[in-house]
């Protein structure tokens, strides 16, 4: 790893130390003074006040000027650390993170996708943040990095993992029922292993997809249950072949759940709405045709 490269953690942690250090000193000073005065001048010991002084311009000037200098130092130091979070190293590896209610999906330059953010150790990674529905937050506590994922807006964040390992990735911006389950990990692999992972075809035959796995990875199961229970969306159990009342442009309509209906509902979630549910299903735009077929086959199997 390039030794001159400052990691995001290296940039932020000293600021924490400086501000916390100053705060502990101030708090300790205030607390000790209050306790000492309360003890020293307690009424049983000091039945009458021994001073009626109501101001002192010099004292007050001191405690206006000194804290002002201190907080300005904090401000500047904090700003300098923040700049490091914003300056993406030139050689950073680009990855696109797509957030949706309530899952993450990562796409690499060569088209490889993954539900985990796999990165090479020691190489900076810049993550472009895309939302397919509402606000989310991309949060890597281990790297002190956080950035909101805003629909219609280009946000990004960068970090570098300097040790191999698995790190938490949370959604930090509240996004509804599955918010706290919208978590995955960063997997930092040694560079050679990472490259092997990147070029390897996605698990198994590239043409034959596993519908069950897709349903989980793409976040379908966050809203659609497999056991018949009603969740945010209708259950998949026994769905195929059922007669369903739907609303098309606000008008009720009875349809038969077949391949064509399922395909349409995945591509254009709001074209026909099942009665009694909210129009909140996102369009999963990165699904390929064969993946949609795999999902349709999978739903057909859930009896």
């Amino acid at each position: 790893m390039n030794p001159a490269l400052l990691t995001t953690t290296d940039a932020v942690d000293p600021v924490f130390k400086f501000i916390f250090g100053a705060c502990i000193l101030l708090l300790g000073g205030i607390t000790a003074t209050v306790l000492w005065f309360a003890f020293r001048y307690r009424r049983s010991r000091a039945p009458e006040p021994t001073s009626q002084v109501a101001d002192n311009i010099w004292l007050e000037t001191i405690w206006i000027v000194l804290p002002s200098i201190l907080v300005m130092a904090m401000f500047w130091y904090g700003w300098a650390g923040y700049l490091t979070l914003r300056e993406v190293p030139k050689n950073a590896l680009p990855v696109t993170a797509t957030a949706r209610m309530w899952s993450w999906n990562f796409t690499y330059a060569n088209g490889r996708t993954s539900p985990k953010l796999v990165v090479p150790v020691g190489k900076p990674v810049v993550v472009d943040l895309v939302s397919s529905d509402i606000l989310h937050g991309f949060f890597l506590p281990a790297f002190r990095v956080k950035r909101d994922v805003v629909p219609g807006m280009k946000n990004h964040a960068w970090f570098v993992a300097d040790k191999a390992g698995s790190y938490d990735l949370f959604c930090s911006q509240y996004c509804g029922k599955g918010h706290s389950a919208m978590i995955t990990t960063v997997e930092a692999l040694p560079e050679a292993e990472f490259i092997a992972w990147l070029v390897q075809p996605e698990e198994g035959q590239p043409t034959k997809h596993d519908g069950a796995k897709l349903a989980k990875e793409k976040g379908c199961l966050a809203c659609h249950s497999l056991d018949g229970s009603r969740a945010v969306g209708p259950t998949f159990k026994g769905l195929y072949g059922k007669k369903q009342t739907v609303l098309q442009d606000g008008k009720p309509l009875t349809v038969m759940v077949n391949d064509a209906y399922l395909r349409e509902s995945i591509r254009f979630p709001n074209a026909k709405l099942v009665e009694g549910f909210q129009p909140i299903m996102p369009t999963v735009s990165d699904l390929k045709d064969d993946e949609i077929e795999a999902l349709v086959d999978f739903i057909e199997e859930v009896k």
Partner: protein
Amino acid sequence: MMPQQPTPSSFWNDTGKTGITAWIFSTDHKRIGLLYFYSVLGFFLIAVVLGLLLRIELMAPGRTIMGAQSYNALFTVHGVIMVFLFIIPGFPGAFGNLVMPIQIGARDVAFPRLNLFSWWLYMLGAGIIITALFTGGGPPDTGWTFYVPFSARTGTNVSLAVFGVFIIGFSSILTGLNFVTTIHRLRAEGMGWTRLPLFVWSLYATAWVQILATPILGITLALVIAERMLGTGLFDSARGGDPLMYQHLFWIYSHPAVYIMILPAMGVISEIIPVFSRKPVFGYKMIAFSSVAIAAAGSLVWGHHMFTSGMSDTAILVFSFLTFVVAIPSAIKVFNWVATLYKGSISLEAPMLFALSFLLLFSIGGLTGLILGAAATDIHVHDTQFVVGHFHYVIFGGSGFAFFGAMHYWLPKFYGRRYAEKPALLAWGLLFTGFNITYFCMMVLGMKGMPRRYYDYLPEFAPLNLASTVGSWLLAIGLVLLLVNLFRGLLWGEPFTGNPWGGATLEWSIATPPPTENFEEEPVVTHGPYDFKGTGIP
């Protein structure tokens, strides 16, 4: 349950009107103050129960007592009630009404009927919010911030709840107008601006924030309703709108609203500390001025809630800078309060204990605020449990403890009876200990990376969450003891007459409990609010 009062003639009975209608249609500022007090206290207790349920759910990972949807609804309702029904109306409505007119030597506020109307608007808004919980698509689940696009899409009853908050906004604006007018026009002879008690100064600064900032909240919330009902698309990026614009509009009100919550609390502390030290407050002018400075500069820092949002880096530079500027007047106040203690004669009775613990808890809240104001460190802790810990230190440890202090300091004056001292000290000890366990653990969790509004969490966060929950039980026991002791005392306790604590502000110069007209004859003010020597006060 109207208690027997020791003094035969007071505002409780001297007009001969006592039934319930003589209260809910009364224009007497003291009766309205008590109406507000009991309403905000009731909502506070409901929201405390909700907070305790949240903590029980978080006691262990996974489902403990409720599902994710219920948890989300619960923290939303907890937040909405605490902010809009308890702490924003709490100080001006309850203690502002009870003591401010007396402290300036007036018989009532400038517009007594408008004052009553404000309370009714408040109750109407509260009623609408409560209705929203049980009708439509169920209680709102957006968080108290109602962020779009989620709030525009969720099927829960957001529109009605937001409408309730909208109505309450009017109540707040009218109270602000009433107080500004009262403080300008109705001061007694000799009550110059430099003789105003600092509580009055703080209400004055607060009232301006209420008048100037609340309309922006009203507009913002109306736009959320329009987004939901009419699909205006103002905040929808797919139709050229901007979700960040909502965040700006929301915080342009809601950051100044933090000062509506904390400034009057600072005012209360500025009353209690001098009285229980028998010394004039140190740096009166500096404290009064810094209230106004906080109110003014505080309206320019809203962007510090949005450092991670994608707002421009230049904006972050400016907002971070201004945030640190606003920190300075708050720090000055703390130093002035501490200096007031020097060479005093300090009595650690219940109001003073609450005031001194305010100093500590508010300092912790304020100092952790510096972490949130600095750009680099805010990125890590924003939207985590650290923020939840921080703002509970400020609004609960700060404003909440000041509210308890005010209850122990002023309520005996209006009831003519007092609470027992020993149980009050015990209650304070339990509250203080429980409080610190609960929220300190939450701040540490946030530093470790646990986000806020999380129904479930990874096993690594379990021990601190458990500790925090246990702390909340201690807090709850302290609170119950505090209330039982206080109200038992107010109804059946020792008589409380004269000026037992030796206050020099005007409310201590009139009969206890005060008569409806407050003053027998027009008062003429001859000394300052903290001039203990010149007044022959013990």
